[in-house]
């Protein structure tokens, strides 16, 4: 050890052994002129004295730091010593004026730091202002010099009672009396809270009870004293023996035990009240911390859940257990927010009234358990545990001994709790809400919940409705269509029984969406119309849901190929929502998307891009970039941009969608199929047909596993796959897909549908390439004949079809008919010379050929000039 430090240590230790007033002289001598050294030693002496000394025994057994019993103390006559604790000694004394007996608590010198003393002086006024029959009054406080040491002291109301637990045992209080006792303690604590004073150290020894007019009257001692005496920043002052420490930790809230004084507030006292109630009712502490090392005990309080009271005593199951769990919630935000709220619930329980606390907190804690153990048991299993537990909680509550009417009420209340819980859990699993969770096999969880619900709630239509609908919606969100259907239909019939119009309409809407998703469009339309009818008659209306129902019906009309009706329906929905719903409301976004999709289908791409872009922004804003709504929005915007030929802008959306869909959904989810398919379509647009075919095939396989074989999406995918094979030069692979594609598309989408036109066109082109010109021309003519009115207005597509027909006719030698088709194509494209240029060049060139063969040089020359003018 370097000499300097050795000297410092020697001076410091010697000075520390001296009484304070002798130190200065000693330091004068020892440090001489070394002011730096002296300053250092003085600081060290302050630091040394600011807490306990080092040997670890002084405060527990040693009495040297305590004054002998003085006969007089600050104007009080000391009568006897009542007891001694870690921080001081309590005397019974007699005050002269006013003449009364009081208790004086004398703190040990050096126990209270200077900073704390300052705070003490500042706060003593607030403490003295506490005036409540349940609080031992502080009459005054001060400092008294005894034997050269300054001792802070309090003069308090003398309470000749015994501590809470002893009293309850001695008086053999019944549990309702114990509950009432805690309610009174909570009243007193609340009184102090309302005046800005937090106790911080509620424990049995600080709550004395006396018999007053035959009633059990608790008196809370030492309000705010903990704040004054605790180390300046140290919540756990380890100045006592381990046993005493544990005795303190047992009542310490997690935020206190974790040593962060800034987090201590009124709810810290609520926690301690919870521990007191727990101990009063069960005779045990809510945490098993006896005989544990201190750091373990602290960790137990901070990290483990309290023992369930009902596990110790069955009679405590139900409301009392819920009250305790709420008071003892680890997270202060989930606790009773005030002592008053705790007192109120205790009294509700005593009066047989419903309590305000929900067993949610317990479910929440189970949830936390699951979360903690997620790594071990896997997310799914952990969630499963919670889900089952949630339902079991609900059912066991339903069995409580109450009047029949109350049972029904309780059931409904519990069912609501379960529903809230289920929704929570499912939101965990639902990427729309929670994008960090993956690989939740929701259906498995729901199956188990289903069984419990059928067994326990079938007698009560209201509850059964709620639970069936909750499950049905959950299944729907998980794309489990069959199970969703049976649950929703069951919920629907319960809703009819109950007569809940709003739920009825909402359920019809969900069924409509379900059937739309499975391609059963007639059923879908029927449910959608019922939903719309009911929503229209609702008073007051629910515009949000009603607008959603408009969107559902419009979606279905669109799927049926009735673009005009669909567009009108979307627009009506937007009109309905205008001025009522927010611009980013989900229903508004659906409607806006629908309008854009119609425009897209009609190839009015500019009209589609703006609303799609708006929806992408809305989704980003409202749900974030990892949400399912964002995924859907970018898929659509990407598709529109691609169709508009803006491939470079579309590509990032396509790539993001491809990755994001795999990220947030389990394999096999419909949106993965969509995103994969679209990525393939992008490659297609880039002319990389063979690669594109791989993606489209992958997408098709997912769809085949999800959807019936005649579902429009499957039909469409098959056709696209055939087209890609064709473009990639693989004609044999393309032929069956495209051949069947025509008929399958016609059946799936209807004859007068753009998809049917496309299917026929693609097959015609394949036949042309296979030099089966007769069939090709028939197919091209068919395509033209079934083109719906809006499509016929699309000059580019219609012109191309006529040109194709002309080509195939020409190849079969039907030159006159071919000529007419080419002319038709050219006339159709007369206003679209730019976009229709390739077709126009081809048509004119073919006409040159036809006229040349006929020897009509004049016309041939005319058309050749036109071709030349295009190529210039």
């Amino acid at each position, binding site marked *: 050890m370097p000499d300097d430090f050795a000297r410092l*240590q020697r001076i410091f*230790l010697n000075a520390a052994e001296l009484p304070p007033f002798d130190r200065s002289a000693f330091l004068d001598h020892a440090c001489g002129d070394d002011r730096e050294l002296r300053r250092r030693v003085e600081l060290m002496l302050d630091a040394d004295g600011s807490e306990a000394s080092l040997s670890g025994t002084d405060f527990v057994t040693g009495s040297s730091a305590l004054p002998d019993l003085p006969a007089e103390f600050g104007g009080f006559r000391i009568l006897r010593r009542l007891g001694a604790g870690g921080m001081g000694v309590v005397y019974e004394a007699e005050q002269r004026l006013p003449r009364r007996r009081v208790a004086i608590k004398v703190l040990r010198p050096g126990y209270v730091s200077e*900073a704390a003393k300052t705070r003490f002086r500042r706060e003593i006024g607030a403490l003295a202002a506490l005036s409540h029959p349940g609080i031992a009054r502080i009459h005054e406080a001060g400092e008294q010099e005894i034997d050269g040491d300054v001792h802070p002291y309090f003069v308090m109301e003398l309470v000749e009672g015994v501590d809470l637990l002893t009293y309850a045992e001695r008086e053999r209080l019944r549990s309702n009396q114990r509950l009432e006792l805690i309610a009174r303690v909570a009243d007193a604590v609340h009184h102090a809270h309302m005046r800005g004073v937090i106790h911080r150290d509620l424990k049995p020894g600080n709550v004395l009870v006396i018999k007053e007019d035959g009633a059990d009257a608790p008196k809370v001692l030492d309000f705010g004293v903990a704040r004054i005496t605790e180390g300046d920043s*140290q919540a756990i002052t380890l100045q006592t023996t381990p046993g005493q420490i544990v005795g303190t930790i047992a009542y310490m809230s997690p935020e206190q035990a974790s040593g962060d004084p800034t987090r201590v507030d009124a709810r810290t006292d609520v926690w301690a009240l919870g521990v007191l109630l727990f101990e009063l009712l069960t005779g045990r502490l809510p945490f098993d911390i006896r005989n544990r090392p201190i*750091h373990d005990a602290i960790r137990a309080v901070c990290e483990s859940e309290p023992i369930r009271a009902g596990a110790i005593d069955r009679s405590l199951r139900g409301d009392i257990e819920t009250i305790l769990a709420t008071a003892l919630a680890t997270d202060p935000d989930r606790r009773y927010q005030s002592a008053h709220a705790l007192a109120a619930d205790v009294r509700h329980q005593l009066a047989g009234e419903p309590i305000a606390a929900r067993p949610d907190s317990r479910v929440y804690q189970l949830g936390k358990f699951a979360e903690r153990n997620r790594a071990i048991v896997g997310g799914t299993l952990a969630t499963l545990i919670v889900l089952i537990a949630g339902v079991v909680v609900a059912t066991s509550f339903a069995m409580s001994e109450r009047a029949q009417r109350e049972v029904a009420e309780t059931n409904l209340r519990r069912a609501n709790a379960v529903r809230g819980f289920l929704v929570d859990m499912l939101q965990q699993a639902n990427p729309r809400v929670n994008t960090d969770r993956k690989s939740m096999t929701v259906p498995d969880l729901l199956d188990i919940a289903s069984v419990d619900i059928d067994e326990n709630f079938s007698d009560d239509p209201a509850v059964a409705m709620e639970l069936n609908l909750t499950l049905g919606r959950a299944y729907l969100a998980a794309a489990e269509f069959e199970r969703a259907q049976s649950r929703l239909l069951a919920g629907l019939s319960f809703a009819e029984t109950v007569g809940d119009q709003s739920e009825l309409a909402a359920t019809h809407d969900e069924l409509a969406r379900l059937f739309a998703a499975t391609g059963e469009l007639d059923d879908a339309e029927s449910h959608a119309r019922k939903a719309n009818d009911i929503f229209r008659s609702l008073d007051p209306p629910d515009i949000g849901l009603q607008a959603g129902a408009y969107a559902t019906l419009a979606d279905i009309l669109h799927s049926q190929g009735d673009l005009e009706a669909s567009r009108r329906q979307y627009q009506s929905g937007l009109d309905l929502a205008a001025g009522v719903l927010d611009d980013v409301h989900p229903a508004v976004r659906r409607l806006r998307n629908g309008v854009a999709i119609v425009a897209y289908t009609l190839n009015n791409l500019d009209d589609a891009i703006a609303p799609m872009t708006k929806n992408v922004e809305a989704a980003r804003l409202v749900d974030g970039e990892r949400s399912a709504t964002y995924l859907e929005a970018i898929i659509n915007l990407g598709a529109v941009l691609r169709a508009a030929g803006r491939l470079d802008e579309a590509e990032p959306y396509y790539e993001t969608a491809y990755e994001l869909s795999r990220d947030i959904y389990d394999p096999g989810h419909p949106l993965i199929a969509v995103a994969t398919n679209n990525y393939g379509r992008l490659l297609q647009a880039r002319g990389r047909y063979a690669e594109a075919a791989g993606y489209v095939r992958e997408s098709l396989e997912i769809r085949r596993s999800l959807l019936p074989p005649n579902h429009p999406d499957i039909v469409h995918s098959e056709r696209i796959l055939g087209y890609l094979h064709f473009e990639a030069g693989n004609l044999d692979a393309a032929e069956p897909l495209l051949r069947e594609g025509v008929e399958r598309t016609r059946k799936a989408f209807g004859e007068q549908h753009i998809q049917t036109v496309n299917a026929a066109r693609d097959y015609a082109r394949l036949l042309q390439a296979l030099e089966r010109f007769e069939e090709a021309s028939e197919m091209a003519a068919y395509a033209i004949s079934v083109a719906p009115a809006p499509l016929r207005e699309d000059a580019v597509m219609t012109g191309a079809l006529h040109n194709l027909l002309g080509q195939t006719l020409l190849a079969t030698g039907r030159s006159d008919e071919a000529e007419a088709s080419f002319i038709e194509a050219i006339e159709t494209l007369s206003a679209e010379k730019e976009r229709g240029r390739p077709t126009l060049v081809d048509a004119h060139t073919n006409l040159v050929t036809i006229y040349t063969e006929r020897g009509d040089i004049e016309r041939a020359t005319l058309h050749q000039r036109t071709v030349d003018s295009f190529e210039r």
Partner: protein
Amino acid sequence: MARQAYGVPNDDPTPQAGPPLTDDLLTVVYEELRRIATSYMANEPENATLQPTALVHEAYLKLIGGEGWNWQDEGHVRAAAAIAMRRILTDEARRRRAMKRGGGCDRLTLSDSDLRAMPSVNVVDLDDALNRLERQSPRHAELITLRFFGGLTVEQAASRLGVSVSTAEADWRTARAWLLSELGDADA
């Protein structure tokens, strides 16, 4: 204050220092502690109060259960753990401080059943102060490290440092007061 140092004959007032800490040992302990500490910190909200001695205790239990190591005694392991713990906590606190650019830093509650209460201090400040103490007296700095971060008892630390228990106690009191004076009253 005649007490018997841990694992040391009665009549030997200046016991031998503990066996040197090998790099291998330090590496193993460091890794184990790092794993435990990281898992704690990952689950703790920011500014959580860490209980370093509790972590060390846990690491110790894990390590003595492991195979292939012939631990000299508990103090030996704890000494290694203490050094590792100090490094881990300081690194972590510095990392977080860097991330938060001057935001609140981790406060470490230096307490254990064997120790007197210490005010919460900033881990980084403590590390800096310990480095300054080390320049003045390495033995005092090591003693603090052993007790604060490793939870060694005075006896274990004395044995480790090769000093008598009474010397260790005097050193401890001095070093602690010196550190507090250096750090200032955390709340003042």
